[in-house]
């Protein structure tokens, strides 16, 4: 593969990571006023505020503060949660797995459903299935995640009592949050898959494969799909931030004890060391996913892989 491209890509990733960490750090200093007072609230005594400032290097110039923070982060030390009075990394560690379970399951559901619908819509172009795929996708992208969560909770939890209405008690409690998150996301895969398949099915190599008497099923599942999947891999990475964003509200609705509900609680409680850490981790994951998608793209497309 092209070395210059790789170097360039890694350089950009590194730059983005630095920028992302600066933004995560600066969040606290965005507001007018004293960060210490913002965090401790208006009833804190002057003495306590001064101690807090000392502890958190708040009397130093900003670059020094950032330096101290990022050095700590690189050693796995994200500081102390004011609200829980525990190291932030401990808090996040226990909350990370529920969030990963939720987002990855939702992503898998969305990809399977979206790809299937998109492929079917492309094959049966202009049929009722095609129109339904388009319209249902429009509906999903128009529904706020938190409202869909509440609807599911009401119908399938409170009314029908099929699933638990919240908490993390086993597989059953995973169903509603995953569907609330994944169904909406499906729309973002169905439509690109449809148009990508339509484009590929119009290509000369598909007609030429048909002329060789290859079965239509093989044409679709092998010849067309392999080509259509290449750009869609990138699509999955691009949707990652939105799935994570959606998971935050879904976690709140279903009392799912993941990073999302920790983030919301920390924002509301002005527990900024936790907020900064979660912002940094999530954006780090997004940047890495984008890098991975780019690299994967150039590995699965032989036209790029074998370029010199």
């Amino acid at each position, binding site marked *: 593969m092209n070395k210059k491209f790789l170097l360039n890509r890694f350089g950009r990733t590194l*730059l983005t990571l630095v920028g992302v960490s600066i*933004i995560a750090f600066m969040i606290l200093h965005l507001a007018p006023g004293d960060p210490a007072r913002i965090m401790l609230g208006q009833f804190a005594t002057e003495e306590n505020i001064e101690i807090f400032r000392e502890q958190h290097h708040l009397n130093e110039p900003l670059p020094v503060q950032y330096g101290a923070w990022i050095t700590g982060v690189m050693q796995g030390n994200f500081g102390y949660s004011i609200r829980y009075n525990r190291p932030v990394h401990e808090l996040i560690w226990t909350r990370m797995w529920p969030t990963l379970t939720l987002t990855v399951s939702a992503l898998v559901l969305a990809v399977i459903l979206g790809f299937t619908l998109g492929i079917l819509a492309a094959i049966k172009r202009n049929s009722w299935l095609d129109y339904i795929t388009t319209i249902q996708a*429009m509906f999903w992208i128009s529904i706020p995640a938190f409202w869909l969560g*509440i609807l599911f*909770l*009401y119908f399938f939890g409170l009314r029908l009592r099929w699933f638990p209405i919240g908490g993390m008690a086993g597989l059953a409690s995973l169903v509603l949050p995953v569907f609330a998150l994944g169904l909406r996301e499906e729309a973002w895969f169905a439509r690109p898959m449809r148009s990508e398949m339509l484009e590929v099915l119009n290509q000369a190599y598909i007609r030429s494969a048909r002329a060789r008497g290859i079965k239509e099923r093989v044409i679709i599942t092998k010849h067309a799909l392999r080509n259509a999947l290449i750009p869609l891999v990138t699509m999955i990475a691009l949707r990652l931030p939105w799935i994570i964003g959606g998971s935050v509200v879904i976690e709140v609705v279903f009392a799912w004890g993941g990073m999302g509900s920790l983030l919301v609680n920390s*924002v509301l409680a002005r527990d900024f060391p936790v907020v900064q850490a979660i912002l940094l981790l999530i954006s780090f994951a997004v940047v890495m996913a984008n890098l991975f998608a780019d690299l994967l793209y150039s590995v699965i497309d032989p036209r790029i892989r074998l370029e010199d």
Partner: protein
Amino acid sequence: MEDTLTYEEIKKDIDNLKQEKTSQLALVWSRFKRNKLALIGGIIVLIMVLIAIFAPVLAPHDPYRTAPLRRLEAPSFEHPLGTDAMGRDMLSRLIYGARVELSIGILIILFEGTIGITLGLLAGYFGGWVDSVIMRLVDILRSFPVIILAMAIAGVLGQGVYNVVIALGIVGWTTFARMVRSKILSIKESDYVEAARSIGESTPSIIIRYILPNAVSTAIIMVCIMMPTALIASATLSFLGLGVQPPIASWGSIISAGRDYLLQAPWISTTAGLFIMFTVLGFNFIGDGLRDAFDPTADRS
């Protein structure tokens, strides 16, 4: 050969190119009008805008008058969509909610539009390191999920309508900047600009003359494309308690308040959500129709 052309001839060329562009826009419009979903979307949006404007006339009750004895009443003739936990008329609150949500949406777009268009113009026009710096900033901001960064910013700024607008504006301008930048780049490369430059017109004046005639239609298109995200994101912030605060009637906070009474009064959260969904759906239908009209080959032909 080319330098033998007279000023008039070049002027005429430019006019022809302009005319071509105008007729292209007419074609886009005629394609758009044929799109049934876009028409439905337009009607939905129009209705919502009218509801927002004429809220005081349309609302059957005062949306803020509480009636403790009539709390959580089911829909009836007097209260077509029931009442909330404080006995306020739901229909009136939802009608006023249209006002709140749409104004917040428009404010967000104005705010992010101002930042985005300025930075996009700078990046596209100057290119070079200015472009690099701005586009890296875009990359960095887009590495955060919109709602998460907006939440953090809103958390720092504190609750309130204007803080929602600021938080979502700071996060959301990147889309505008990218659109404007690529537009400027394509204008810079067009024949029209080449011709105009050859008769000594400066690039800024070309860009202004090129963009201004279509400014209104471009603005409408941009609002329709950006509105869904702005509406859903601001409603989400209100739902999380980081945006519009009660008693102001916003759809997001109504859904949030209705959560506690789902079994007794499911109409509170469900109807408010339907209002959000249909408004966003309307804008999405329009946006989709516009996309198809501008690029008919991309989808069904």
